[in-house]
């Protein structure tokens, strides 16, 4: 296994404290290493030390000699591309992979630990909150928080006590909800807070959060990060796994970079700011000249209008009296990338899905035009025929047949193209899929591989391939880079740029403002079901977009 720490060291800038993995204090030195001499980043007792962790699966080395040191009261970020070994490392730490199934040593609070299961690690105060939340939707907040851990008196659950303690915990995490509220009625951001409250209900010494803000909007993300800082002040150490480098830059005290299953770099943030570029360099092991591909922006007035929406209204599918989209009008031109910015719940996904064959909502009013002509998009089939494609934000839930192979996924929305008289031409189908594998650079052994085994970025490329195969004129991309790593993001951006150059129109919904600013020709701002602003690329900025949202909120 290549230890790239040395290769990278020339990149380290003198003003920043950058240590290669080789410079880390070696493990055999001691229990309770003398720390007095250590300054800054080394201050504080290590609460967790993982040394030389090696974990193999049949045919694959998932982790090779990984070291990780987290100090008491630190927020320690772990970054790395998808597949770099972050989740595996956390599973080793939390006992999901029990002692004996890996090599190396885990020391927690000074003692060597041999966790046989998640119960052992939780008993020591190591609590992990997974990316996919583990809450029971139809139980209340209090029931979820004390699930399996209910306060009881003579074997009977003491609900008064549970409710009282839930109130305390909710106050701690800053969530204003009744303990009796059902999880299913809460937004994702609030559910995340409930998960944290649940962790606090146990004795937590080290909190591990796996991509906690992946599905949160900016406001909720900030609130969550503030909460982590508060925990830090209370002495709770924290491991934060995230793809969002700006968040890491904001809260982390130290960063461990994983690449290809090895810890390649350890960055100290207390000595001075660590730049995002620097982290990215360590993650991908190469210089990323630009995070967005260069493309000539379309002039605001140029080009033929391909897609037009007029006075579009959509009511909520259950509460029909509530309008989710309120009179939206918009245009997308040939070769244009148009963004829709907005907070979670602004109605962006609902807008897109309602246009795409009424896949969302009811009592839909308004007009859709393609090339100036009104078209009927009342079913998904018709929308596809009229050249509209919608790439979902939820690729696992709504985009892919996970158990099926790449080939079948790519042709699914346009089977007619590879069949005649209802009979599929297997050869043509294979050729079509292989073509997209090559064009989109889908990393797989062959197109007969099941999509469930692909990384997030490659799954996203399969979904993109599926919709490109339907040969759309308007491609609606809903959070196209959610949960995928930096390298794959760049590839997705490159594909988008190339498609726009070919004359496709792209409508991109994103909660990441930098990517909207980096990619779009024009940006609409949506809030509470309405468009509240429109900016050309040249004049747009994060501040202006936020101001448009906030101003409308005040009005």
């Amino acid at each position, binding site marked *: 296994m290549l230890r790239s720490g040395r290769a990278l060291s020339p990149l380290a800038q003198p003003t920043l404290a950058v240590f290669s993995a080789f410079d880390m204090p070696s493990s055999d030195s001691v229990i309770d290493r003398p720390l007095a001499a250590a300054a800054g980043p080394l201050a504080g007792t290590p609460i967790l030390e993982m040394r030389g962790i090696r974990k193999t699966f049949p045919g694959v080395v998932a982790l090779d000699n990984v070291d990780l040191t987290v100090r008491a009261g630190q927020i320690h970020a772990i970054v790395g591309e998808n597949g770099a070994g972050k989740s595996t490392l956390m599973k080793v730490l939390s006992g999901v992979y029990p002692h004996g199934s890996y090599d190396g040593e885990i020391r927690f609070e000074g003692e060597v630990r041999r966790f046989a299961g998640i119960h052992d690690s939780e008993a020591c105060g190591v609590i992990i909150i997974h990316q996919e939340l583990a809450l029971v939707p139809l139980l209340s907040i209090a029931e979820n928080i004390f699930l399996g851990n209910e306060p009881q008196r003579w074997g009977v659950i003491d609900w008064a006590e549970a409710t009282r303690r839930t109130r305390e915990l909710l106050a701690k995490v800053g969530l204003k909800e009744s303990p009796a509220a059902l999880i299913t009625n809460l937004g994702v951001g609030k559910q995340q807070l409930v998960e944290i409250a649940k962790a606090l209900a146990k004795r937590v010494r080290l909190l591990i959060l796996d991509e906690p803000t992946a599905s949160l909007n900016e406001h909720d993300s900030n609130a969550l990060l503030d909460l982590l800082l508060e925990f830090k002040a209370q002495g709770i150490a924290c491991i934060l796994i995230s793809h969002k480098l700006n968040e890491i830059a904001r809260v982390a005290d130290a960063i461990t970079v994983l690449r290809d299953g090895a810890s390649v770099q350890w960055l100290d943030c207390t000595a001075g700011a660590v730049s995002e570029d620097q982290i990215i360099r360590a993650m991908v092991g190469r210089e990323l000249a630009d995070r967005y591909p260069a493309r000539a922006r379309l002039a605001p007035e140029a080009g033929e209008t391909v897609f037009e929406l007029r006075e579009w209204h959509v009511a909520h599918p259950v509460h029909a009296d509530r309008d989710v989209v309120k009179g939206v009008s918009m245009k997308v031109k040939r070769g244009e990338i148009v963004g829709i910015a907005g907070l979670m719940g602004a109605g962006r996904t609902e807008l897109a899905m309602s246009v*795409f064959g009424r*896949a969302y909502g009811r009592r839909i009013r308004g007009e859709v035009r393609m090339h100036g002509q009104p078209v009927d998009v009342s079913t998904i089939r018709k929308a596809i025929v009229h050249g509209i494609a919608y790439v979902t934000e939820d690729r696992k839930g709504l985009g892919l047949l996970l158990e*099926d192979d790449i080939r079948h996924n790519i042709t699914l929305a346009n*089977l007619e193209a590879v069949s005649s008289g209802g009979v599929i031409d297997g050869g043509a189908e294979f050729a079509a899929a292989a073509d997209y594998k090559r064009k*989109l650079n889908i990393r797989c052994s062959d197109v*007969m591989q099941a999509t469930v085994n692909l990384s997030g970025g490659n799954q996203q490329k399969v979904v993109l391939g599926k919709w490109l195969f339907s040969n759309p004129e308007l491609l609606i991309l809903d959070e196209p880079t959610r949960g995928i790593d930096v390298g794959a993001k760049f590839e997705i951006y490159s594909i988008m*740029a190339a*498609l726009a150059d070919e004359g496709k129109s792209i409508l991109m919904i994103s909660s990441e403002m930098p990517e909207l600013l980096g990619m779009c020709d024009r940006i609409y701002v949506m809030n509470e079901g309405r468009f509240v602003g429109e900016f050309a690329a040249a004049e747009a900025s994060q501040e202006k977009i936020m101001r448009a949202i906030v101003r409308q909120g005040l009005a």
Partner: protein
Amino acid sequence: MTTMEDKMTPQIAEAPVRSYGGFLKNNLREYGMLLSLVAIMAFFQVMTDGTLLKPLNLTNLILQNSYIVIMALGMLLVIVAGHIDLSVGSVSGFVGALAAVLMVNYEWNFAGASLLCLGVGAVIGGVQGWFVAYLKIPSFIVTLAGMLVFKGLALVLLQGQSVGPFPDQFQLLSSGFIPDMFNGETLRISSLALGAIVAAALFGLKLRERAGHVKHSMEEEPAAFFLGKNIAFAAAIVWFCWMLASYKGLPDVLVVMFALMLVYDFVTRRTTVGRRIYALGGNAKAARLSGIKTERLALLTFVNMGALAALAGLVFAARLNTATPKAGLGFELDVIAACFIGGASASGGVGKVLGAVIGAFVMGVMNNGMSILGIGIDYQQVIKGIVLLAAVCVDVYNKNK
């Protein structure tokens, strides 16, 4: 799309690893069930001192299992689509009763009555499917209700009596054999010839399919393996027909069953409708967002199931030459078991027609073999239950590995 490629970072493609051992390992699961069937047959062949594979017994094996196989074809589609149909036994019993009442009591022509019965089966399936697909009522509940309703309606139709016998032509559906034009005394030549033709035709089709795959450089099994497998398969068909030809020839119902099997195998593997059913069962929401009319498709699988249950009901009634109130009792369990033994997934999206057929014959051979051995019906059920559980456990274990 050349511009797109230019902008992408180049990536070294990994060459797929090919080897005989690797190929065998990857495909063992696929052939595992077939090998199990062969093993079970060999076991009973030895235990019954060669009775199992005697021409007479082979013929019986076909006749006894034909209606289960026919229903398994439809059930496979229902299960792949992510549903279940518990009503098939009752529906087949009800349709058998309807046929008897029409043909015996009202003296309808056998052809007209049979067609009407198939239509009634399709309508029954359609009504149940409508509740499942459009009203989103779980299929387990809808068809559980259907099971009770049609069990009761069969009793109503027959007024608690057995009705029979059927007209002679109708009986031929289950007791007829394809006519022999060569007047073979000990060997029915036309049956053997038909078997040889089918074997050759299937072999030819496989060759053509392989040529197509090679042309598109799709991952392909080693040539020796391909030839060995398909020659063995063709030889098995010829041998099987030889055995049957030395008794009374190929049963009519075998021809029907085999034709249906080929049709459904083709539909599931090669047609857009088949592909969409797998997509529906694999991820209904993703299928819908891909422009697939998921409700209509689910309805269709139930209509198809109803029609096949009706056909099975007719075959069973013709075989008994009478419609009894107990006809069809418990068939649904054998049919569902056949699909799961054959590798279908209870959560939908996975399953093969040939698997379901093999599953049906695994159950059938065990029934037959244990009966010859004189094992009581009590222990037969215990053993069948254990085999079902074991087969699915092995399948799940293989998938997780």
